[in-house]
């Protein structure tokens, strides 16, 4: 399991309530980590950037 307290310290984050947040993070880590091993190298993320995208008039 990840050392969440060390990660927070390394990132310079003030996270006081570790007892509350560690169990759900450990649970998520246990469910998520094995899935990462199943990703093919050419799998693209489901977020895309459109270089040709025009800014709508309403937002200019």
């Amino acid at each position: 399991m990840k050392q969440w307290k060390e990660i927070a310290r390394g990132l310079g984050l003030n996270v006081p309530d570790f007892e509350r947040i560690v169990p759900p993070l450990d649970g998520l880590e246990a469910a998520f980590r094995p899935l990462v091993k199943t990703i093919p190298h050419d799998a693209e993320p489901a977020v895309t950037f459109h270089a040709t995208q025009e800014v709508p008039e309403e937002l200019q």
Partner: protein
Amino acid sequence: MTIQEAAIALRTGKVSSVELTTEALQRMRSLGHLNAVITVMEESALEDARQADRELASDIDFGLLHGIPVAVKDLFETEGVRTTCGSKLFEDFIPDRDSAVIEKLEAAGAVVIAKTNLHELAYGITSTNPHFGAVRNPWNQERIPGGSSGGSGAAVAADMVFMAMGSDTGGSIRNPAAFCGTVGIKPTYGRVSRYGVMPLGFSLDHMGPLTRSVRDAAITLEAIAGHDPRDESSASRSVPDYLPPREVSIRDLRIGWPENFYFDRVDPAVMSGLESMAEAASQLGARITPVTVPDIAAMNAVARMILMSEASALMEQFLDRRDHFGADVLALLDQGRLLAATDYVNAQRLRHMMQRAFSAIWETVDCLLTPTAPMGAPRIGQTTVRIAGQDEDVRLASTRFVRAINLLGLPALSLPCGLDVDGMPLGAQIIGKPFDEATILRVGAALEDATDYHTLKPDL
């Protein structure tokens, strides 16, 4: 009375919009202890109602929502009216624009009378809001209404309004619909504009209505759907006619009945409610088709990874004001800050893979029938729930059957399917193909016509 019935009454002179609106405002006041509402827009609502009456009397008719009193979750921006998002951070925020949904509702002649209470920042399912009060379930005021659109669920269930808008990032429309005994639809991602709605998870947020009937949900969806260039994820597909006809048929429709995951651990009353819905569908000529669904628990984990990353990124600039957050939301935001960027990217890669794997289901069925939640509404303050002999976190249990559908962006409808042993409402979920809201509304309307679960009302 439903929107459909009220629309007829308005056009035959049996009632006026001012009368409907006045009654709604009175009921909102008399049921103030439910904490369903944050801001009441009495003056503008009555003015809008008077205008609707004038227009209808002059044969100017904007459709079935014209003159109907409605509410919106208090994260839809309303020009000149504060929009709190249920947060102390935004308690005095008065937008200078309307959200796209508000624009569409007003163009349809709806009378927006209130902004409903919600889970703080829409980040949770209890709607026990530390800043604006805990929303109470109209069926039992010691119970949560679900969330995060808990005020919208309570307002519709308590007959304050005909429709209340919600948003759904991990089940936040369907969960309160199930817990409050109303209908709720989360459309396909991109079907309804997110413009002017406070985001929670950019790639998971969906907007949709909670209503008293499936056809009312269809009427509302038709009014608010459509392309909006101000929302980058907005779809350019045209909006079809969603309203199911009076004698709606589902004959030969293939309704998928999951053989794995969805019925593994549910309250017995949920099981019997779903079985009765399947039986009703079968009687109507639909084909109940057993299917094996991909790993929904894995999808839930991926969806949580994405949501926690996106929500924490969004709120990072405010996290130095820790006293402005409730404890549960602050804990979630802290968790999200500890996740790695690589995990977010990999979660979005897994999302594509899971989307492809799930789409194979549509070769064998036209929609899926599942529970919305594995149990009825828990008590306010309850943190774990025991289902089939196993203790489970209330939030994770409540979102177990709905969260993955946000990851996939699919349309899903929740409608009442009975009560549990404590008399709390239960919900059935119908999940459809992308942009096939018409089919799930058709199935929902047929099941509503064939059963009487939607006629059950809380004793207020």
